[in-house]
């Protein structure tokens, strides 16, 4: 019975801690969102992703595009 009781105790403390932690995390996320919205001008978003996306296919594609264009003109 002792083991069961201790299990129950662990459940209470454990769930309480998990909820408390994640609630505080929610608070922190909301605060952080508000903060960075307010001071958005201080943290300009670098538009890095599109540039990266374009080059994801590698230089091969770009060369191929160029080549295709050349050939097409000649043709």
């Amino acid at each position, binding site marked *: 019975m002792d*083991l069961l009781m201790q299990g129950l105790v662990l459940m209470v403390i*454990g769930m309480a*801690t*998990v*909820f408390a*932690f994640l*609630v505080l995390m929610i608070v922190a996320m909301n605060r952080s969102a508000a903060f960075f919205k307010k001071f958005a001008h201080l943290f300009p978003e670098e538009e890095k992703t599109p540039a990266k996306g374009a080059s994801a296919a590698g230089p091969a594609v770009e060369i191929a595009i160029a080549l295709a264009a050349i050939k097409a003109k000649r043709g």
Partner: protein
Amino acid sequence: MKKFITMGLLAAAVLGGAAQVQAEEGVSIGKGFEKIWHETGIYRFINPKTPEEKKADKLAAAIKAAEAEIGAGHLEPALKFIDMSAALGASEATISDLQAQYKDEIEHGDEHHKGLLPEGAGQLVMILVGLGLIYLAIAKKFEPLLLLPIGFGAILTNIPVAGISAAAMPGQPAGFLYYFYTIGVESGVFPLLIFMGVGAMTDFGPLLANPKTALLGAAAQFGIFIALLGASAMSYWTGGVVDFSLQDAASIGIIGGADGPTAIFLSSRLSPNLLGAIAVSAYSYMALVPIIQPPIMRLLTTKEERAIEMKQLRHVTKIEKIVFPLVVLLLCILLLPSATPLIGMLMLGNLMKESMVVDRLSDTAQNSLINIVTIMLGLAVGSKLAADKFLNANTLGILALGLAAFVIGTASGVLLAKLMNKLSKDQINPLIGSAGVSAVPMAARVVNKVGLEANPQNFLLMHAMGPNVAGVIGSAVAAGVLLALVG
């Protein structure tokens, strides 16, 4: 928004209230919270351990080590730790108790350490178990990245004569899987490196876009504690046929966290003997998420609820994503330092990814490093699938409790999501609650699929990713609590 935070705090308070009640009955609940409080960073920054406390810790560790070694039948180190306990000032009663246990082990040790089957037959059966895991990995694509190496490790470790997982003999090196286990798993290094890689692959954007869904990642951890309770109950009600200590119960519970590295990390610390069964159970049920979850999700929701479309997620800025891992780590330091190895490595990986200044490290963490560690970790986990540790009633208990944990975790996630949908201004599809168990990203994909069945326009994937990644944090926090209280 405030509503949900209040709700979470309320849940915590109610549980805390329950604690008060329990405390009346003489069980150490009040002390439990006090212990947790004494293990927070907040408390310890102000009250660092005194030399006396440090010495007491050492003594407690020495006694625990002595008992563990006696229990494992390792007579020589047991003796060393008994001596060490005496040197550190253990009471005479404690010492004579340890010596009695030691004597009992010498006289009746053989009886304690017998498997269900004779050694040879047991090994043969375990080789078949290993083949079964490999079959599931290849033919059924059950988490093959882990189950294939685990199954192979199980075969290798049960080969007679070869001693592939054996400790060193005089003048002879240990088996190579023994090194993988001690260096990588016992030390905690392998699961933590995997967690770093997971962090580097995780996008917390959907969670940051809709923070309140983190509550679902908390609710779904309920499965962990119900399974823990179940393990205790099983031990009690079967009269010891199934025999779990509190440590074992905690390790079994963590299967409900649906997170492999967390389960391996925790059980390597609390119940190394059960590690094999626990890891196999955790990965198997993670693979079965598409089969286990949908019926529960359908049972607990109406078709209208499943058809709910959710508001598109807002754009999350880069800086929020960079700051997030640090904030979570700081929170964890203040509230629950025992969870910081896990949370810390997860957040290190994520910071490497989001900061975009160390892309080569982030790439390596997500690829060659995590792959190398996965191979070795899988084999090392398999090395714990020895016949005498696996072929017994306990393993059946673990499998049953693991399933229960997944079911209950899923249900509690869905139920909380239903409640939140009732209270919320913006509609919340209750299905996303089931993703709170983690099992990233499978559980989120299941949500999406079940949602599409009810409404072909209903793309829930990104909405489910929020609870999904919160569930990873939630189960790491649960592991931290268990480490702090029974570790």
